[in-house]
């Protein structure tokens, strides 16, 4: 690999942008981003508000919820591969479904299920982290603001929409930022659990790039995928920064 002697212009970029599997990978990555934003984060916020304050044994629960975050993605992936085993005598999830008289499924083997199955694993691993951010954010809201609102006769829902949520805006923004960037980069969990399969149904940007760069050694093609990934991440980061700059004046 010397200097770029045979510069191919935008040939590689053009090739990937018309490749169906690449477009599928982009779609899947965006699906994971969307699911994280609209399912995982609201769930984390909900749990944080529910348990963040006034619950006995809070520290203990925080320890439990945060535990998967410290386990590596490799361990997480192998662990969930066992749980997802299609045989009810081996995979716990199908065993539970069978015991309840429900249909068992090949969670990682069916094209329309695999992405959701992976998303469940991502939620298991990362929801505690987002809860932690929200709980910290909630603790930073001054008590007297809420007490003043209560004296003014605010009900619970008003309290949430007009007091808690706006004061938590900074924390939510941060967790959105981290979640989007993290979701775009998901690699180890997908690669170990499915290698992007079956038939590319769980292919994401990073697994696609890895396959072309390091399994097939088409470095130029892999680099083109990396450039697209970088552009997506940069567009998001710049949009985020300008959004933060604009709203910070308001809050």
């Amino acid at each position, binding site marked *: 690999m010397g200097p770029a002697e045979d510069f191919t212009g935008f040939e590689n970029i053009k090739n990937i942008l018309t490749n169906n599997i690449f477009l599928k990978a982009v779609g899947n990555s965006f699906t994971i981003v969307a699911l994280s934003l609209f399912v995982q984060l609201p769930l984390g916020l909900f749990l944080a508000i529910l348990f963040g304050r006034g619950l006995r044994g809070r520290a203990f629960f925080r320890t439990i919820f945060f535990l998967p975050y410290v386990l*590596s993605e*490799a361990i997480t992936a192998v662990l969930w591969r066992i749980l997802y085993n299609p045989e009810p005598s081996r995979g*716990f999830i199908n065993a539970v479904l069978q015991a309840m008289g429900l249909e068992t499924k090949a969670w990682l083997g069916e094209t329309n299920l695999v992405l959701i199955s992976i998303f469940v694993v991502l939620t298991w691993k990362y929801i505690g982290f987002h809860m*932690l*951010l929200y709980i*910290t954010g909630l603790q930073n809201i001054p008590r007297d603001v809420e007490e003043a609102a209560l004296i003014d006769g605010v009900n619970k829902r008003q309290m949430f929409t007009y007091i808690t949520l706006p004061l938590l805006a900074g924390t939510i923004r*941060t967790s959105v930022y981290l979640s989007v960037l993290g979701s775009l980069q998901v690699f180890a969990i997908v690669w170990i659990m499915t290698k992007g399969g079956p038939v590319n149904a769980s292919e994401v940007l990073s697994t696609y*790039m890895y396959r072309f760069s390091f399994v097939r050694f088409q470095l130029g093609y892999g680099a083109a995928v990396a450039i697209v990934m970088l552009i997506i991440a940069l567009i998001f*980061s710049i949009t985020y920064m300008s959004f933060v700059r604009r709203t910070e004046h308001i809050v």
Partner: protein
Amino acid sequence: MPEKAKKSKKFIEILPVILKYIILIAALLFILVPIVIIIFGGLKTRGEFYTIPYVPPIPPRWGNIVRIVKMPIFWYMMRNSVLVTGAATAGVVIIASMSAFVFARINFKGKSLMFQFFTLGLMFPATVAILPIFLIVRQIGLQNNLIGVILVLTTFQLSMSTVILRNFFMEIPSELQDAAMIDGCNTIGFFWKILLPLAKPSLAAVASLAVVNTWNDLLVALVLIDKEKLWTLQLGTMQFQGQYGQDLSLVSAFLILAAIPAVIFYIFAQRHIVSGLTAGSLKG
């Protein structure tokens, strides 16, 4: 009639509390059951795993655990991970504390531009850069060498760590530095003898975060290391799954052993990890 109304009102009042606990228990089960199932599985024989997979392992069978502990490769993985994590963490703390000090305390031309450039690293994670990383490391001949992994993992954590430490350093009043200077302390002396001891909690937070991030890396090691003896624990976990994937009780036992260091570290450093994460993400 009023009696009854009173009773139902009471029920409505405690209903949210009951609901809250039901949700709490459901969430706890979602987190804990997968871990418990794997612990159960790892402490059974292969036969038991397939006949009675979901009951507690009574009596526990240590056969699988012993088998893994006796594999030399397992100890190579542990050693490699400890080496990489120790070296990268030390590198991150040493370099980031110095660069954070410069950005927080010393004025020079182009400082803000340089800091902006530094924070670009926050948007440029190793996953996106893995291909140039591979090419560069190969070019300097550090492929299949733990030093290559250490260098890459150190570098990619510098931005975040510097931002966190700079914030902490900026909170330390400048009067303190002025006072130290008057007492005859130079800049390096101030950094070494006054600032660093004061910043111990934030250094611990950054170090703990670096430990978790380095320990859990898979991709960098996967790309840079082929030699079995140089596998890190995460790389080994992936390969172990590939090699013994059919023997689920053995794989479960491996997971138990592979998770132990991280869990022990978590128990002792939880406070620091948490403060590092919240500082990094809420201020960064």
